[in-house]
């Protein structure tokens, strides 16, 4: 149907070339990291990281496996925080969105402003830290990883509320009300199932945020008891440096494959995300586009 001219072909080729270069660039650090993690530590020390493995050794992974109690526990905490956090977040977001989507709710405008204003003005880290450490006393508890800043975002409430308002025909709700269904029932039985597309998208983005969060741990955890995988990675990045910097003086650490351990630890943090990404990429892309340009 479409007739391609010569200039079209050139543009097509150039576009492909640009994308190949960019894709390679996006991938490069990952490749270097993975290859380093399965390399022979002595060869790395002599020759440095590159895009193929230097020798082959799983020593770094064996070292991590020896410390499986730390890594395993951290993974459990990450999984727990992600599941519970996402679930509670969706509940709070969807119920608030449902209330705000109802035309005849008294004070709707005031409550809407109550939500929107949190996007305009931010107290900042110092008072927030004060509230959570002195008033709510959340430090060194598991909720510290779930509640501060992450549990409910005004933006998501508005996104879901708009979906309820504009994408779901109000006649369905009205007829349910005439049939005598209560609001909780309507919310659970009609609204939630009908809004599955937006709930899945918001839920996925929330889950990624929980999985990747390291700031709450930095602010509110002082010991390793509730360290998620991101906390372990964050602390080990500087701790390993510390070991590496001092390794010439101490005999013990010199035997550790330091230059490959660091990369193996990061690889363990990356692999699960890489494995599941192709399955949820579609929703991820959708989340990006509705997030950027309001509907």
């Amino acid at each position, binding site marked *: 149907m*479409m007739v391609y*001219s010569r200039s079209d072909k050139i*543009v*097509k080729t*150039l576009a492909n070339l*640009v*994308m190949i270069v*960019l*894709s390679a*660039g*996006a991938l490069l*650090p*990952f490749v*270097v*990291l993975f290859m380093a993690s399965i390399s022979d530590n002595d060869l*790395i*020390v002599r*020759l*440095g*990281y590159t895009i193929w493995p230097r020798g082959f050794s799983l020593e770094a992974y064996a070292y991590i496996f020896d410390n499986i109690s730390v890594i395993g526990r951290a993974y459990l905490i990450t999984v727990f925080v992600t599941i519970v956090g996402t679930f509670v977040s969706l509940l709070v977001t969807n119920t*608030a969105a449902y*209330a705000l989507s109802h035309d*005849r*709710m*008294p004070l709707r405008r005031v409550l809407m*402003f*109550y*939500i*929107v204003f949190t*996007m*305009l*003005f*931010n*107290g*900042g*880290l*110092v*008072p*927030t830290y*004060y*509230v959570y450490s*002195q008033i709510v006393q959340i430090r060194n508890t598991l909720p510290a990883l779930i509640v501060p800043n992450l*549990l*409910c975002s005004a933006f998501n409430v508005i996104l879901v509320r708009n979906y309820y308002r504009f994408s779901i025909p109000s006649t369905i709700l009205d007829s349910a009300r005439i049939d005598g269904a209560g609001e909780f029932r309507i919310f659970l039985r009609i609204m939630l199932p009908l809004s599955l597309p937006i709930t899945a998208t918001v839920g996925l983005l929330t889950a*990624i945020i929980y999985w*990747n969060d*390291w700031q709450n741990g930095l602010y509110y955890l002082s010991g390793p008891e509730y360290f998620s995988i*991101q906390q372990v*990675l964050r602390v080990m*990045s*500087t701790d390993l440096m510390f070991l590496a910097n001092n390794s010439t003086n101490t005999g013990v650490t010199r035997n550790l494959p330091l*230059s490959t351990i*660091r990369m193996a630890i990061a690889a363990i*943090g990356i692999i699960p*995300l890489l494995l599941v990404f192709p399955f949820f*990429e579609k929703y991820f*892309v959708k989340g*990006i586009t509705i997030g950027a*340009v*309001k509907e």
Partner: protein
Amino acid sequence: MNKKLRYFKRSIPFYIMFLPAFIYFLINNYLPMFGIIMAFKNVSFRDGIINSPWVGLTNFKFLFASADAWLITRNTVLYNVVFLVLGQLLGIFVGICLSEVRNKKAARVYQTLILLPHLMSMVIVSYLANAILNENYGLLNRILVVLGGEAINWYADAAYWPYILTIIRIWASIGFSSVIYLSSIVGINEDYYEAACLDGANKWQQIRHITLPLIKPTTVTLIILGMGQMMRSDFGLFYLVPLNTGALFRTTQTIDTYVYRALMTLGNTGMSAAAGFYQSIVGFLLILGANWLIRKLSRELALF
């Protein structure tokens, strides 16, 4: 009267459903908003905010008397401007390239790969950056040595970091911005291009006279939204990626890292609260300004 009562009764479920969010925003957002008065007090966490003595503008005097205030403002704003401008230009460029890839499978693979960095936490990004920049083992220094140059200690010289941070930021966000522009380009009616083809317009003319003008609203919106965020910075990018190195503060310290370090490392609550107050108030004005601008352009896109 009876009717009013019934009306009220019928609204109760909505209030109950709104209650959890109400309480959450009260604790997470509104209490800290009132907490910004800490900037005018000599706060000790033991006595609490209410009982701590007022000190007027003393905290601000210390903050603005130091060179830090200017440095962190300059760094925060300049990085934001560079990220915003480069982000849009490259986002548009890559978005157009992606839309020109006619092979669906190839386009999908490209998109997956350039989105990968956006999926990673800043902790992971700091590891990836280290694989490239590590003084002894990093790929970049290996290349320099092989080419006959000398290895550079990237983590010791602040002069490199504006470039390093910009590259990392673009690397991490290019997938994100190009996907936004791609969705905007895909939304353009095919008829325009077909008509242009019939008139003998080549690809470049089509891009210049159809694509670019039609994605302008997206660009304008993104730029104005970015202007509202000028006082904020990606804490992880500036704190984790330079490995919290003091020697690099000249070019890596932003308002957010300053507030964190003053609070947690130095224990200087007053100074930290003052910097936070400054960030909050100026940030608030910027967002109001940005929204005012968007409203003038298009009522629909405005936040409120």
